[in-house]
């Protein structure tokens, strides 16, 4: 079974530039999560999708971050414009429908904002 795929793996940009990350979850997983993991900290949820609907985006900085899940499968997370404090690893995870289901994580995208 293929795991959660993310691309790119690494990205370096200047502040005020835009960047997009892509995630392909495990086939059949209804729930998709985007997390931000700053060095030395635990993952912080940015947005949770169930199929193609948003369940929770309360911690997503909506003035600069946006996310969508196309046809309830792939998802993209965009930052525009980026700030220095956005430097982090962006993790995508997927799971079956419920909160008691195990989350499967992708390898992450390491973003450096200069």
């Amino acid at each position, binding site marked *: 079974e293929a795991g959660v795929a993310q691309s790119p793996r690494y990205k370096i940009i200047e502040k005020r530039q835009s960047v997009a990350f892509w995630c392909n979850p495990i086939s059949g997983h209804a729930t998709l999560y985007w997390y931000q993991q700053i060095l030395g*900290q*635990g993952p912080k949820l940015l947005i949770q999708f169930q199929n193609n609907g948003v369940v929770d985006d309360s911690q997503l900085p909506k003035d600069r971050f946006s996310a969508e899940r196309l046809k309830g499968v792939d998802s993209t997370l965009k930052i525009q414009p980026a700030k220095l404090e956005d430097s982090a690893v962006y993790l995508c995870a997927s799971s079956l429908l419920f909160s008691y289901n195990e989350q499967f994580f992708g*390898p992450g995208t390491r973003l450096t904002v200069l």
Partner: protein
Amino acid sequence: AQTVTQSQPEMSVQEAETVTLSCTYDTSESDYYLFWYKQPPSRQMILVIRQEAYKQQNATENRFSVNFQKAAKSFSLKISDSQLGDAAMYFCAYKYIFGTGTRLKVLA
């Protein structure tokens, strides 16, 4: 507010010894699941063990077991017979809320 707290930033254990990682949480729900995830250096996060709050029996997966104290809202992870491959960051989680992690070092 729902929170997860890990108070041990780093722990060390000798190979073949036992170590316990601590976690406390807060929730007003009565039925829920708790998780321990492992994040090896430069590798993907994976599930170690899961506990359902309604179950009295502590979960066990091979060398990994939990001590779940529902009233105290405590959920610790015990690793027995520690191996070099156990070295990683360990995160306690409730739903999509993660603690700050404990870095486990295994000494040969």
